[in-house]
């Protein structure tokens, strides 16, 4: 059964055309990243201090995966939706389900096949990153693998959304529209976070996949982010399963959809509350210095922070991506409260005198600060715990500046804009050519 479903996905022109177009998108992101990295590296090569800033994870992997995110978001829903909706267009949906005898098995084989199609651009991204190594670039295996793993989870989520749309819609056209709208909705969530007028929508950011991709792109394997992506994928699959039940009508179907919504919210929301994260970046550079992190883990009392900063405040973003992320790696149980997020009425948005202050609690003791520096906050935590700040030294990240020019740049261009898209097109032609051959 799986071989049949794989053939339906991998012998379809739309799959390979999508893969070729996606390869161009991912390749373009890669070329831009290489050029920018090269431009900065020219001056950094003569300055050791500057060269430390040249982090291939930040400068090459993330922009490439940005292209992959766009490609997966645009083409993944179509591949997922088609896997099921094509059976409706062909009037074989009910017959196939009766033949298989179980909506779960039907969905499992469709899902695996659709993921194989959606993951093709992901393989393209892997090939491009390998070409970075071939031109002499540095990639740390652990952090790159974690970033790629996060995007594979995203591909699974997008595929599941497509499958749900395919199962619930009447045909491929309707399913494709629905699936793309669902993904566009997650982009709307991302966009809404930036508007202070819509600050009450800020909590919705927790329901955007891009929020949960961020830790992976920093080389951190984060259980909460993994949990959300897995839970949301499972939730979407439950929608798809309910949609496959062609024998459910009226109230039963409505009840199944309401139940699916609950499962989606509970699975994604519940698994998001998992705690635990592992910094797999090279030299664990996204963690606190080793001695401080180890000592912080040993503190018997759970540190708490009250942060009086708005979502759209750049200091808060800096705090969340740096100090809080590092503190959470050492203390997954760190409790953080943002009072501005709790306001309900628009008039409460006005900033009071306490705005900008952070209060650190350890047990019954507390101290206020306006600093968002990780060292300052860690120092306060230890002082409140009655301990000295441990050794703050950390291995120096050397940085890996690289100038890619001449023949090596031409190779990058050829792989990104020609070889990879053409490879997908060639494979597509080979696998989908419909000449009639009789035995």
């Amino acid at each position: 059964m799986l071989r049949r479903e794989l053939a339906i996905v991998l012998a379809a022109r739309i799959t390979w055309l999508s893969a070729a177009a996606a390869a161009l998108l991912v390749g373009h992101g890669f070329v831009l990243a290489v050029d920018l990295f090269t431009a900065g590296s020219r001056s950094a090569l003569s300055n050791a201090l500057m060269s430390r800033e040249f982090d291939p994870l930040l400068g090459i992997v993330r922009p490439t995966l940005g292209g992959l995110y766009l490609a997966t978001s645009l083409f993944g829903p179509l591949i997922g939706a088609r896997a099921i909706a094509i059976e409706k267009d062909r009037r074989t949906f009910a017959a196939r389900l009766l033949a298989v005898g179980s909506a779960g098995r039907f969905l499992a084989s469709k899902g695996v096949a659709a993921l194989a199609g959606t993951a093709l651009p992901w393989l393209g991204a892997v090939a491009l990153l390998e070409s970075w190594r071939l031109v002499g670039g540095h990639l740390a295996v652990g952090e790159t693998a974690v970033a790629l793993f996060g995007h594979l989870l995203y591909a699974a989520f997008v595929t599941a959304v497509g499958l749900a749309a395919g199962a619930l819609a009447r045909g491929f056209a309707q399913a494709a529209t629905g699936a793309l709208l669902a993904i566009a909705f997650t982009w709307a969530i991302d966009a809404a976070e930036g508007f202070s007028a819509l600050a009450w929508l800020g909590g919705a950011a927790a329901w955007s996949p891009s929020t949960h991709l961020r830790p992976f792109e920093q080389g951190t394997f984060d259980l909460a982010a993994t949990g959300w992506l897995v839970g949301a994928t499972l939730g979407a699959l439950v929608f798809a399963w309910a949609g496959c039940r062609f024998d459910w009508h009226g109230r039963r179907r409505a009840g199944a959809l309401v139940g699916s919504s609950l499962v989606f919210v509970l699975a994604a929301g519940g698994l998001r509350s998992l705690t635990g994260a592992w910094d797999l970046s090279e030299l664990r550079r996204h963690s606190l210095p080793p001695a401080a992190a180890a000592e912080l883990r040993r503190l018997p009392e759970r540190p708490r922070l009250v942060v009086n900063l708005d979502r759209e405040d750049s200091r808060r973003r800096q705090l969340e991506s740096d100090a809080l992320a590092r503190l959470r790696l050492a203390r997954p149980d760190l409790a953080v409260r943002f009072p501005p997020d709790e306001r309900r009425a628009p008039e409460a948005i006005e900033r009071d005198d306490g705005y900008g202050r952070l209060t650190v609690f350890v047990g019954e003791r507390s101290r206020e600060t306006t600093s968002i520096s990780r060292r300052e906050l860690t120092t306060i935590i230890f002082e409140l715990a009655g301990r000295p700040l441990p050794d703050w030294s950390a291995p120096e990240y050397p940085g890996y500046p690289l100038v890619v020019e001449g023949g090596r740049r031409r190779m990058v261009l050829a792989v990104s804009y020609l070889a990879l898209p053409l490879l997908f097109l060639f494979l597509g032609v080979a696998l989908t050519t419909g000449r009639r051959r009789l035995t």
Partner: protein
Amino acid sequence: MAIVEGALELQEISVDRGGARVLDGVSVRVSPGEIVAVIGPNGAGKSTLLEAAIAVVPLAHGRVLVNGRATRSLAERARAIGFLAAEAEPAGEVRVGRLLEEPGPDPAWARELEARLRLGPLRSARAATLSRGERRRLLLYEALARARPFLLLDEPTGVFDPLQLVDVVALFRAVADRGTGLLVTVHQMSDAEALRSRIVILNRGRSIAEGPLEALRERVGLGAGAPLHDVFVALLREEKAHAPA
């Protein structure tokens, strides 16, 4: 209607669509090894009857029994019933050989089907490149190879030329001889005649006659040898005459 063990029974089936009743209290029984042909003008409710039997459309009234038990779950229906829709198309991307390799419970029967439907020479062709008749033969293979106790086939004969029709009718007979009950909708009267089956005639969502062709001829007063088409027209006129103004 008495419950018959081992039969597929559609009891008093009514279906509403868009606020209108498109099937109204239709009952059909299919015994193992029996072929029942459902005929009727366009819009009579033939396809809807089959869809109601597998629950693709909700029932406004009535029930579907297999072996005297109401079918409630998808798994129960799947164990008992195979289905082929009227305008179904095979998976065009897949090679015929791959579709023929899908596991069936009886490999010998699958090989016989492949030979009878003359699919062997098409093994390396993609399904999308086949002719309409070949695609239909492939779909028939997929439906018949799974060997469910009952098969619901919606207009399975419409695309075949007279010679192919002879083979397909013989195949349906062979399927019935294996104990499978077939409920087949047919648009062409000649096809229904060729099946030599029990016939159910639907008109405007209601069953207006049921029985073997000879019994239907007798009912409308036509002699032996009268074609089904004449019997059908006579029954429709009879129904129209008795219909309330």
